[in-house]
């Protein structure tokens, strides 16, 4: 299904674990440095209300005066577990994209705030880079360095799967529980 900006609470609440979603609109990258900065009280350089944050350290180069994304796969999300939930609440962030899933703290905030976790396909650097059609801006590049900067990505039909929804469900928990049962039976 398609999900287009603005990413309102209503649209996000309608999503369920297992939904395959193609995102179109403006999203922001942010990884360790950005999350820590915001968590420590830093002012966000962009308006994060109803936004989607992408855990990604992209490879971006300037070609003919324009930013071009060369690789844009997701990075492991669990590193942001201490920060993610409170930031969702404080800034009304409606979704994060990453890989590997996140923990119970983030899941609880997803329910409370009305937000979801989107799982991108780990390693699919080229397919995902192609979905970024424009890079209108970049923030904090000086302070954080290029991979850690907050990049503005205009994406079209960016493919993800909802693995944690705003109703308290996590595909990661479900798959883990089911595989654990299977494992126990085998051992």
């Amino acid at each position, binding site marked *: 299904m398609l999900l287009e900006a603005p990413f309102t609470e209503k649209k996000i609440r309608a999503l369920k674990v297992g939904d395959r979603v193609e995102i179109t609109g403006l999203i922001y990258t942010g990884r360790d440095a950005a999350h820590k900065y915001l968590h420590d009280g830093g002012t966000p350089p962009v308006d994060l209300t109803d936004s989607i944050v992408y855990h990604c350290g992209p490879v971006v180069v300037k070609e003919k005066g324009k930013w071009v994304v060369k690789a844009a796969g997701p990075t492991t999300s669990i590193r942001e577990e201490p920060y993610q939930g409170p930031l969702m609440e404080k800034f009304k962030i409606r979704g994060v994209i990453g890989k590997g899933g996140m923990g119970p703290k983030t899941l609880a905030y997803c329910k409370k705030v009305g937000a979801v976790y989107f799982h991108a396909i*780990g390693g699919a650097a080229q397919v995902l880079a192609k979905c970024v059609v424009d890079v209108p801006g970049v923030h904090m590049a000086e302070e954080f360095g290029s991979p850690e900067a907050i990049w503005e990505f205009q994406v079209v039909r960016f493919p993800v799967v909802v693995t944690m929804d705003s109703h308290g469900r996590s595909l990661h928990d479900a798959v883990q529980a089911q595989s654990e049962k299977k494992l126990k039976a085998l051992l």
Partner: protein
Amino acid sequence: MDAKLLQQNLLELIRRTSTDLPADVVQAIDKGWRREQKDSSGKYALEVVRDNIDMARRISQPICQDTGTIIVYADLPAWCDEPTFIKAFEKATVQATKKGYLRQNSVDSITGKNSGTNLGPGSPSFHVHPTRGKTMKVRMMLKGGGCENVSCQYSLPDTRLGAGRDLEGVYKCLMDATYQAQGKGCGPGILGVCVGGDRGTGYVAAKEALFRKLDDVNPDKTLAKLEKRVMTDGNSLGIGPMGFGGKTTLLGVKITHRNRVPACYFVSIAYMCWAFRRNGVTMSETGKITRWLY
């Protein structure tokens, strides 16, 4: 020997490794894709993976942006000594980084500074051996960080798993490692495994086992049986591509062994992601590539 030609060929080896997955890996991914249920998230994940593989090859760009640890194995005949080879490979590495086939991926562990060239202590990771033959053989692998983080080592006996010092115990370790990894190592994954050795040689041998082709059969009948069993049972866990659930959790299991001291029994597991970038070439004394190994 033509040092310039050698360097050129090594650059081409790096380019191919980073941008073009070998046929046996693509076949295994395709097989998994066919097996996954229609309209499932697992199938969808493998669809994106397949598109990504095609696209990276077409535009000659890295399959994944984490171009990983550069692991190099070289068998050097008398016509090329070790310093000559290493120098040529290092130059090729710097060039490949400039051209974007490799990301700047080598960080000083003490200062946190990125060398920017992929060179530094232990980077690339060289395993160079002299050979009596006339042919030079160079194999390499790019091992990403996500899958390295879910690699693991067991010391048997293991009370938690109820795993003793026998092949049944090894089986339990491999199943547990597959379960623990879930989708976090960008599965479907490949297990390179070493039974025995010390902690160091065990991990090295486990990675070496990954140079075997995915569709080969272990000449050791006992290990072949164990590999098959772990493949079948590992896939039955239902973890699936990316941990989304599904039938394809493992693409391969490759087991080797090393002698151990009586007091130790290690099982070392190198988990490799679907972006299984490995390749190799043979070269003649003129410096010409005579064969691609994968």
